[in-house]
């Protein structure tokens, strides 16, 4: 009792003495990073009730002088950190340390805001980390499919090739960490070997600003961008796991990032994904699972003056291909088309049997830059890629374990870039590259290689200039030259060489004089010179409205598949023939876009027009009879084509908690030479989505979205008749008719929970194809055989640390 009294007395006296000091107190402090104890420079400290401000110095220190005794409400803010609110009862001069914490998510937001477009005049759309994470267990193509004007060419449901405005494969350039991907992208059933989890942002350039990466981006560019890290000492990471009811599989992805104040950073990421047989609404898609292991490592050093970064990624994919799609001849195809169900519908299994694809892709690069006074920023980059593709088919006599296709593609590139930015109103970018590529059709397959051995040499030069006309108007112009030489070694059937294609007269210089039984060895060599150019304009108006206009000239040399392909494709029951007479294709592209950027209300309206001279297409030309029966022959040929359409996107905040997003894509493709529609063009489609968000309730988000794809009535009729020897009758083979209109509904929900001061947990629950709609998609190469996927429940958990 006495003790308490004494204490009270002491407090009373001390108050009295403090009062006597008459507001001469000092409040000092230090702001420190919670994660690594580093001092935070430039944090703002605001005493709210006194409205006094201070900022931390390089050592994280701040100081307020001449304070009175009393309560202080202090708000501490730092970029990329959680804002901290503290109350202090000031009784004497005090020094206190405060910890601020940051998270991967907060860092992202900072990064995304600072991420600019490829070029200021570029017409492009992008996906940010948040949207990419929704597709953590899916593919690049699936993620891009959500953008207007982007569709995909699928083989089943796991092999997904992105398509921009109806163009795909060699007409799209995929740039991964500033490296142009070379992964045998020419094949329709070759999906890009990219782990979507390794990326921070994915941009799609629909316009003409593509010269920096190549002269042949007739369709456009897909740029996969890494993150730029804040220069500070920090360690953070995240783990995301996903589980799906359809396919009974999912993935686990982890990444950990360490950054240093000195500018060094490193990031390690790894991903494992596995699925069993997927299910269409009415049956299992036997042999449709997949297995994938990916990992990537980034190391870098960034300062304003100089820096470097090194990147390595490894992608290992194993895709099962629907067993029912392995067929023999055209009668098997007719059976498949006429039967409503695939011929094999076994119970669920994780087994990946035949047919299947096994692909490994290594990508490594190192890039360094230095800013040179009065000149600009000089960048040098060396990259290399090794792609190994094995395709396995059902074979006779224990050969199934031996691949039917085994190709190894090695590519390496050295490039340099000089950006000159110190000139008034004018920015110049010069670049040069040399590239060597080698394809090896690995021996031991017991088949004639689909793509022959070849060596390819390339060199390119470009210059792009950006000119600021006035505050609201900028112009860009660029020109590029590419040289390319291909040197291949291929054996032809002698009859085909001499008679079918008349190559003995057209290309006698390719003959080596070696004949082996029914085969002739040849050495085709081609050289191409490609010119390309681009023009761009951006004009800014009030209310965040921008107008952009692009023109581009692009030319593309035929790819190895268009030149050399020669053989049977089992899943399509067709013989595909490339022709040595194929020449390059040249496109003139026009695109304009009217855009308003804003979270309350925004839109973009982007019409486009492309005219392509010598458009290379693969179409059926006749039927050949083999010992296996009859097969349609598909041959590459060249026509003049035009593609035009419009992409429209709208977003509107309709209420404090509700937002609307919608998009519409219209497209028409014409074969001008034959005055018929162009083959394999995407259909008119539109999407609508309503999102409810409540930041106060654990950032609860509920989104309902709908996508409708209309039946395409404009398609070229390549249907044909074939004689069925068993029924002794002509059979109609309907390979062209398109599947009917379908609508899909998806639900996405998510909430974020704080698990501790520094960590949080994001839980997502999604339903795809809510109504379990059975449908077929025209741009799926396996659409003759089975329906697309049925309903799927998905659970994702993301943990930030």
């Amino acid at each position: 009792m006495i003790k308490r009294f004494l204490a009270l007395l002491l407090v009373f006296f001390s108050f009295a003495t403090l009062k006597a000091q008459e507001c001469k107190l000092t409040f000092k402090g230090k702001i420190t990073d919670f994660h690594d104890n580093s001092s935070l420079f430039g944090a703002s400290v605001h005493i709210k009730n006194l409205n006094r401000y201070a900022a931390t110095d390089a050592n994280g220190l701040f100081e307020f002088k001449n304070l009175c005794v009393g309560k202080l409400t202090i708000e501490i803010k730092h970029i990329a950190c959680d804002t901290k609110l503290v109350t202090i009862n000031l009784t004497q001069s005090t020094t206190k340390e405060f910890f601020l914490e940051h998270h991967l998510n907060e860092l992202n937001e900072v990064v995304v805001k600072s991420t600019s477009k490829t070029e200021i005049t570029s017409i492009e759309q992008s996906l940010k980390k948040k949207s990419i994470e929704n597709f953590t267990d899916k593919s690049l193509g699936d993620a891009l499919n959500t953008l207007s004007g982007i569709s995909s060419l699928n083989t089943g449901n796991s092999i997904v090739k992105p398509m921009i405005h109806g163009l795909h494969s060699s007409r799209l350039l995929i740039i991964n960490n500033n490296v142009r991907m070379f992964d045998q992208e020419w094949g329709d059933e070759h999906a890009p070997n990219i782990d979507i989890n390794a990326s921070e942002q994915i941009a799609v350039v629909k316009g003409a600003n593509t010269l920096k990466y190549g002269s042949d981006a007739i369709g456009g560019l897909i740029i996969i961008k890494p993150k730029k890290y804040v220069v500070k000492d920090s360690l953070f990471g995240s783990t995301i796991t996903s589980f799906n009811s359809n396919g009974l599989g999912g993935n686990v992805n982890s990444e950990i990032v360490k950054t240093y104040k000195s500018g060094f950073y490193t990031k390690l990421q790894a991903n494992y994904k596995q699925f069993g047989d997927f299910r269409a609404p009415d049956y299992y898609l036997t042999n449709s699972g997949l297995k994938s292991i990916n990992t990537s490592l980034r190391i870098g050093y960034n300062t304003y003056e100089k820096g470097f970064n090194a990147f390595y990624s490894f992608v290992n994919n194993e895709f099962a291909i629907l067993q029912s799609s392995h067929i023999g001849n055209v009668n098997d195809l007719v059976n498949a088309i006429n039967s409503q169900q695939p011929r094999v519908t076994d119970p669920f299994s994780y087994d990946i049997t035949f047919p299947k694809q096994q692909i490994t892709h290594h990508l490594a690069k190192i890039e360094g830059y230095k800013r040179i006074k009065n000149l600009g920023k000089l960048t040098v980059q060396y990259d290399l890629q090794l792609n190994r593709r094995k395709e396995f088919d059902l074979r006779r006599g224990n050969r199934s374990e031996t691949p039917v296709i085994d190709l190894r593609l090695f590519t390496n590139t050295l490039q340099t870039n000089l950006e000159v930015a110190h000139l008034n109103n004018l920015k110049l970018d010069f670049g040069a590259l040399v590239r060597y590529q080698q394809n090896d059709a690995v021996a031991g397959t017991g088949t004639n290689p689909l793509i022959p051995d070849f060596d390819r040499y390339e060199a390119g030069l470009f210059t792009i200039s950006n000119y600021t006309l006035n505050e609201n108007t900028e112009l860009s112009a660029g020109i590029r030259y590419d040289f390319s030489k291909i040197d291949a070694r291929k054996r032809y059937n002698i009859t085909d060489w001499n008679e079918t294609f008349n190559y003995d007269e057209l290309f006698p210089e390719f003959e080596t004089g070696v004949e082996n039984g029914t085969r002739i060895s040849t050495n085709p060599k081609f050289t191409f010179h490609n010119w390309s150019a681009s023009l761009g304009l951006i004009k800014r108006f009030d209310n965040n409205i921008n107008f952009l206009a692009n023109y581009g000239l692009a030319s593309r040399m035929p790819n190895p598949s268009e030149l050399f392909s020669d053989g049977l494709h089992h899943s399509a029951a067709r013989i595909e023939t490339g022709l040595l007479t194929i020449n390059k294709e040249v496109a003139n592209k026009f695109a304009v876009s009217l855009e308003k950027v804003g979270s309350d209300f925004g839109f973009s309206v982007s019409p486009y027009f492309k005219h392509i001279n010598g458009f290379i297409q693969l179409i059926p030309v006749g039927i050949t009879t083999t010992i296996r029966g009859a097969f349609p022959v598909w041959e590459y040929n060249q026509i003049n084509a035009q593609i035009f359409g419009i992409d429209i996107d709208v977003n509107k905040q309709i209420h404090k908690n509700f937002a609307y997003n919608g998009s519409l894509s219209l497209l028409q493709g014409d074969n001008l030479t034959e005055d018929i529609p162009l083959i394999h063009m995407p259909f008119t489609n539109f999407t609508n989505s309503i999102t409810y968000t409540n930041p106060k309730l654990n950032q609860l988000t509920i989104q309902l979205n709908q996508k409708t794809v209309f039946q395409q009535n404009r398609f070229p009729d390549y249907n044909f008749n074939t004689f069925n020897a068993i029924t002794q009758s002509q059979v109609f083979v309907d390979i062209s008719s398109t599947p009917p209109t379908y609508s899909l509904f998806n639900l996405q929900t998510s909430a974020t929970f704080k698990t501790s001061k520094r960590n949080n947990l994001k839980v997502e629950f999604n339903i795809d194809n809510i109504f379990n709609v059975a449908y077929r998609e025209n741009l799926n190469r396996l659409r003759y055989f089975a329906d697309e996927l049925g309903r799927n429940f998905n659970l994702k958990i993301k943990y930030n640390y």
Partner: protein
Amino acid sequence: MKTSNINTNKMKTLRLIALFFVATLAFSSCADSDDHDDDHDHEEELITTVTYTLTNGSDVVTLKFQDLDGEGGQEGITTISGPLTANTMYTGSIKLLNETESPAEDITEEIEEEDDEHEFFFASSITGLSIEKTDEDEDGNPVGLETSLTTGTAGSGSITVILKHEPSKPNDGTSASAGGSTDVEVTFNNVTVQ
């Protein structure tokens, strides 16, 4: 303290760069080790020749399809050695060859080894002609390498021989519902029965 930190960082980076280049060399040397010889295989699974031999004592009729250069190139040639006799029962046997190999590879043996994964189907437009499969695989299902062909009255038409890989077995006897992928489908037109 600070400088030493940066120094270790620099050291680390240098080491990493060194490692990276070593890896690069390893990769490129892999790729360079390839010879540029024409090391490619022959089509191993090719079937060039189908011979259906029908025997009744000394009355032997062979139906033969031969396409020596495989898919593409020259079309295959069918030869029918002579007419079948009316109202007669023949023993039929099928032989498959790959004649691009020397000596010719007997594919029939492969089929025999995997007889549970294969089945022949026969069809004919000749009235009264019927073909029964007389052999069985390990599960007791028909294979069709061995057959019995019975002719009816005189007439002419075609006989089609189909070999399916991985059909559903047992099946209803028609190739269409058996599924599988077709390894052989050969039609002999103008077969006469007299």
